[in-house]
């Protein structure tokens, strides 16, 4: 019996090995190969699938209209399960496939794991939504489409000060999440400069976020009329629900992770009325309607969030740069990387998540920060 088992396993191993290699493919001049990894399954899948769908829409549009330049895109996505180790495996698989440009990863931890490898391989990498400062700082060929966390936190503080939204500020954040911490650090640093009055600061971790009532009560007891919520929509829904239950009505303020709060299952969207959030993408604005309807068709009627729009913009920015610099399917990844790196230093890009976007030498983006307020279940520019 053991022998049979051993033989079966050995056979499976050999099969696995062959499946692993031999996928080297021929390069076609008219098609560039773009790969992405993201959490397509598991707890963070909502972000990964959104980015993937946004990118697919962009690829379809480009391939349908490829007449002008003749350049098409071949796109492949791979699941990284929001895990650095799996992301590296996925990235390597894409490299074997012949990827020229890496449009990932979606979440920060996998980005930090893959970015040094991309620097070593000299593969051009642009993350749609990995927002830690450390990602862009890994190397000169790593770019970001979204704000870095401290920058966004600082922008939030600036907005609060400009619009005089608060007298007593409370902060609830996820201390086990570097996205949340980066935002809080940026907010507090800028807030101290601008003289914002932070009276209550309380946190939770990813292991005890099923009940956030204590944190909300703390803010209420401290007399906060403004609560900064730098985390994701699921937790925000909990906070809003509980605040409503105890009759606590401050101004709630979130960041881009909060986008999607209106589409959470079982959440009464009436509770989100008056919520202000920083997001570069407004699905209710006129200029985004074409994208929104395509996305809805693809994703069974789900309204796209900023992750999807970031993904869409990443594909277009890479594609436009390729057309401008004359890169085609036969350019090696390293050559393409060198060309794009040079081109992005002076590149100005208009997309769904903003116009006049530019990148600095480190690869961090600079665009106008935008915020929306939720009124009658819709985003309205704030």
């Amino acid at each position, binding site marked *: 019996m053991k022998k049979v088992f051993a033989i079966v396993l050995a056979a499976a191993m050999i099969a696995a090995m062959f499946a692993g290699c031999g996928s080297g493919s021929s390069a076609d001049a008219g098609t560039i190969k773009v790969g992405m990894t993201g959490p397509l399954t598991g707890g963070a899948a909502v972000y990964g699938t959104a980015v993937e769908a946004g990118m697919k829409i962009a690829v379809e549009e480009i391939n349908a209209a490829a007449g002008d330049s003749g350049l098409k895109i071949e796109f492949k996505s791979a699941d990284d399960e929001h895990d650095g180790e799996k992301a590296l495996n996925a990235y390597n698989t894409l490299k074997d496939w012949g990827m020229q440009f890496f449009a990932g990863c979606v979440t920060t931890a996998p980005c930090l*794991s893959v970015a040094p490898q991309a620097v070593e391989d000299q593969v051009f990498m642009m993350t749609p939504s990995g927002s830690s400062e450390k990602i862009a700082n890994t190397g000169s060929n790593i770019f970001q489409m979204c704000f870095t966390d401290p920058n966004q936190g600082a922008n939030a503080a600036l907005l609060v000060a400009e619009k005089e939204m608060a007298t007593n500020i409370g902060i609830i954040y996820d201390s086990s999440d570097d996205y949340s911490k980066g935002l809080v650090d940026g907010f507090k640093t800028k807030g101290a400069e601008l003289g914002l009055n932070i009276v209550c600061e309380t946190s939770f971790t990813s292991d005890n976020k099923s009940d956030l009532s204590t944190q909300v009560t703390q803010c209420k007891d401290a007399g906060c009329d403004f609560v900064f919520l730098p985390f994701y929509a699921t937790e925000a829904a909990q906070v809003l629900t509980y605040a409503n239950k105890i009759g606590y009505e401050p101004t709630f303020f979130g960041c881009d992770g909060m986008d999607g709060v209106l589409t959470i299952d079982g959440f009464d969207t009436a509770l989100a009325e008056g919520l202000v959030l920083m997001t570069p993408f407004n699905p209710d604005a006129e200029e985004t309607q074409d994208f929104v309807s395509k996305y809805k068709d693809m994703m069974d009627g789900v309204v796209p969030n900023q992750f999807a729009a970031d993904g869409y913009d990443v594909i277009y920015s890479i594609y436009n740069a390729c057309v401008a610099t004359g890169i085609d399917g036969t350019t090696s990844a390293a050559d393409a990387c060198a060309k794009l790196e040079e081109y992005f230093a002076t590149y100005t890009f208009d997309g769904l998540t903003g116009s006049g976007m530019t990148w600095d030498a480190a690869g961090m983006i600079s665009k106008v920060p935008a915020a929306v307020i939720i009124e009658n279940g819709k985003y309205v520019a704030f």
Partner: protein
Amino acid sequence: MKKLWNNKTTRTNLTTYLVVTVAFVVMQLMSSFGQLGSAMKGYLIPVCAYIVMAVSLNLLVGVCGELSLGHAGFMGIGAFTGIVIAALLQDAIPNDTLLLVVAMFAGGIMAGIFGFLIGIPALRLRGDYLAIVTLAFGEILKNIFSNLYVGLDSEGLHMAVSTGKVQLLEGGRMILDGPVGATGITKLSTFPMGFVLILFTLFVVLNLINSKEGRAIKAVRDNRIATESVGINVTAFRMKAFVVSAFLAGMAGTLFGLNFSSLQASKFNFNASINVLVFVVLGGMGNILGSVISTAVLYILPEAMRGLDDLRMILYAVVLIIVMLFTWSPSVKNAVQSVTASVQEKLRKNKKEAVNNE
């Protein structure tokens, strides 16, 4: 030599070493002839680390009979200790291999110490209770790591458990940064070193199993009361197995940690422990070669099935169930056995007939 080969234990042990060595040589040759893709190359070191994890857990679960659900915790200790030690001694030890070995031993010893400390209260418990305590222990470690800040500057190491407490001088850098984890790790792990670590682990574990201590440990597993009645110190032997297992897991952790340029504490969660347990159970309790093979196959399988997109993880689960049924269900076992027996019978008959015809 023939005598040696006739001894069943020696034969199994030699086969184990042989399989591992052949696999290593084949991989090395393919790699040097450029036959391995980047994906396959990327699997090699993690597979080595997980094999060591599975073999060390097999010592605990299969040989000692204690269910541990916190093995990834020891791996985490090894990983983060190794990363800090490697960063600290980077200038003192210029040789990468030597630095890796030192870091691995540091990681192993640290994990061993923790194993000992945890063992004192935990090994008073048995079965399910021990499983729950180890589970809790793994989670505690994960939380500690995600709140640990370690920085290095010209004055030495700085450590704190809350953000902003570590103030570094000019030119200093954070080695561990709380939830962000360790970033900017210098990759030291190599496939040959992974292979050496596997050999070392096999040497330790196989020799332990077949020694006087090993027999005592197995006796504790099979009948605790009987063992106690013949004057064997049950707790001491369980502790030995526990500490050795933790030590090896720590070394595996260092190898794993120094293979990635960034590492988060959340990697060493409950799922990671269960994953290793799956490798052990599918490979066979107490079967060391089984652990080695099942780890390699089960690690590469889901990666090799990437082409299947959404069906990938479902099929992976189905494969797990099928393998489990084929190896451990008595009825399937009997069915397979009767089929092979009848085939053998037929072959024998054919042979006889052939002989008779002549």
